[in-house]
C-alpha cells in the first residue's frame, strides 16, 4: 500500500511543527527570549528614556527594535538549513513526499512564529502605557505589525543565507552583515555620505529599498500599502531564492 496523499498546507504544517518544537528542545530558546526581553527593556527604558519623555507612545522601543533584531534574528535563522545540511537530514527531508517550497515555507514560518512569540512578550510595555497614560492604540497596533513584518523580512534573508552554508556561525555572521547593509540604506547618516556625490534620485531609490524606511512609515502609524507590500514581496522573493539555492546546493 502506498502512503496517503497530503495537501500542501498539511505538508507545510508538518515541517512547521517539527521546526517550531525544535526551538524549545534546548534551553537556547529560553536564553534567547530572556536576552531579547532584557535588551528590549534596556533600550526602551534606559537608553530610550520612556518615562522621562513623558509621552504615551513606544517610539523608543520601535526605534531600537530593528537594531536589536539585527543581532538577534540571525541567531534564529542560522540553523534552519545549515544544520540540516551538516547532519545530512536534508537528504531525508527532500526524499520524503515534500516539495522544496513546502520545506522552505514551513521552516520560515516556524522561525517567524518563534520571533513573534518573542515580540508578543514585550506586550506588557503596551499595558504600561495604557496604565500610565492615554496612548494611541492604532499607532501601537501598526507599530507591532511593522515589527512583526520586519522580523519576517529579516528572517527570510537569514534563511536564505543559512541555505548557503553548512556552518551556522558563518550563516550568522553573513546574515548580520547583509542585513546591516539593507538597513543602513535607510539610515539618514549613511545616506548623507552617499548624498555628497550621488544625485537625489539615487538617494531616494536607495532609501526606498531599505527595510528601515518602510518600517519607519508603519511605526509612525501611517499604514501605507506600499510599505506592507515591500515586506511581503521581500519575504516572497527571498523565500523563492531560498528554494533555488537549496536545489542548487544539494549536489555539493
Amino acid at each position, binding site marked *: 500500500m*502506498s502512503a496517503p496523499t*497530503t495537501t500542501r498546507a498539511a*505538508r507545510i504544517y508538518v515541517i512547521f511543527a517539527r521546526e517550531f518544537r525544535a526551538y524549545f528542545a534546548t534551553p537556547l530558546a529560553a536564553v534567547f527570549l530572556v536576552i531579547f526581553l532584557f535588551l528590549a527593556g534596556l533600550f526602551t527604558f534606559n537608553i530610550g528614556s520612556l518615562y522621562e519623555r513623558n509621552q504615551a507612545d513606544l517610539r523608543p522601543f520601535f526605534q531600537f527594535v530593528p537594531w536589536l533584531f539585527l543581532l538577534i534574528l540571525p541567531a534564529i535563522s542560522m540553523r534552519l538549513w545549515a544544520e540540516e545540511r551538516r*547532519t*545530512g537530514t536534508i*537528504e531525508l527531508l527532500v*526524499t520524503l*513526499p*515534500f516539495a522544496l517550497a513546502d520545506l522552505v515555507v514551513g521552516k520560515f514560518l516556524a522561525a517567524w512564529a518563534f520571533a513573534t512569540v518573542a515580540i508578543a512578550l514585550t506586550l506588557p510595555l503596551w499595558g504600561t502605557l495604557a496604565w500610565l497614560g492615554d496612548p494611541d492604540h492604532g499607532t501601537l497596533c501598526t507599530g507591532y505589525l511593522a515589527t512583526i513584518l520586519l522580523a519576517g523580512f529579516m528572517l527570510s534573508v537569514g534563511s536564505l543565507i543559512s541555505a548557503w552554508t553548512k556552518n551556522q556561525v558563518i550563516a550568522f555572521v553573513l546574515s548580520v552583515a547583509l542585513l546591516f547593509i539593507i538597513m543602513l540604506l535607510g539610515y539618514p547618516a549613511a545616506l548623507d555620505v552617499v548624498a555628497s556625490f550621488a544625485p537625489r534620485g539615487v538617494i531616494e531609490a536607495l532609501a526606498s529599498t531599505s527595510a528601515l524606511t518602510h518600517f519607519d512609515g508603519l511605526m509612525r502609524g501611517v499604514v501605507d500599502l506600499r510599505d506592507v507590500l515591500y515586506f511581503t514581496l521581500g519575504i516572497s522573493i527571498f523565500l523563492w531564492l531560498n528554494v533555488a539555492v537549496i536545489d542548487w546546493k544539494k549536489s555539493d
Partner: protein
Amino acid sequence: MAKDTGTTTHVAAGELLVATGLQKRFGTTYAVRGIDLRVKAGEVLGFLGPNGAGKSTSMRMVTGYLEPTAGTITLCGVNLLTHPIEAKRTFGYLPEGAPAYPEMTVEEFLAFVAAARGYSGSEARDRVEGVIERVHLQGVRRKSFETLSKGYKRRTGLAQALMHDPRILILDEPTDGLDPNQKHEVRELIRDLGKDRAVVLSTHILEEVEAVCTRAMVINHGSVVFDGTPAEMESKAPAHITKNRMDHVFRMLTTGDRATLHAKHAKGARR
C-alpha cells in the same frame, strides 16, 4: 535539459523500479554515465562498487534527491521527474549514514516521519509502534538520536524507511557499523522484506550480497560492469581461487582493464 519528461518508459509487469539511461554530471565530470536499473518485486539487488563509483549518486537520483543530467525514473509506474511527490510515496529510503535530527528522541523522530508520510492520530501511533517493534527499538525509544550507538542509529533509519510499508526499499549501506548479531538480524529482515518488494541496497560487504541478494550489480566509474546473480558473479573467479572468490571477482571488475571486462560481460550481463 535534464528532464526527459516527454517519453514514457516501458515498464514490464512486476517491475517496480525502472531507471533508464541514468546520467549525472557534476561540472565537467560524470559521476554516473548511463545506468539502467530494473528491479522487480521479490528482487533484492545488491549495488556494489568501490567508493566514488557512483552508487550513492545513483541512489540519490532514484530517490529524487539529485536531479539526473539525463535519464528516466519510474517508481511503481509513477514518473519521478514529473510527479515527484507522488513518486516519493512509493519508496522508503535509508540515506547514507542514516541521518536523523540529533536532539529528537527515536519516538519523536519516527512520529515526525509518520506525519510527513501523511498519517495522523491513532494510525500514526500504530505505524510508529509497528516499526519500533519490527526493528527492535523498544529499549531506546525515549533516547535522543545523538546518544544512540551506531547500530541503533542505523536501525532508526531503517524503521523510518519502513514507516509506510513501501513497495520499494532503497537502502544505502544498511548494515554499516552494526555488530555481527545486528548484521544478521538486519539481513534476515531485508530477506523477509524482499519477498514481495523491490529492494536495492548498497554495500561493501560481499558476503552480504551472497547472504541476502538475489541479484548483484557492480558499478565502476559510473558504469555497470556486472549484472547477474551472486552465484554468477562468483563463478567469474578463476578455478584456482578457493577463498574469497567474490572479493576476487570484485577486484577483477573494478581494477585493471575495463575495456576487456565490458566486452566479456556485454552479452550475458542482463538476465
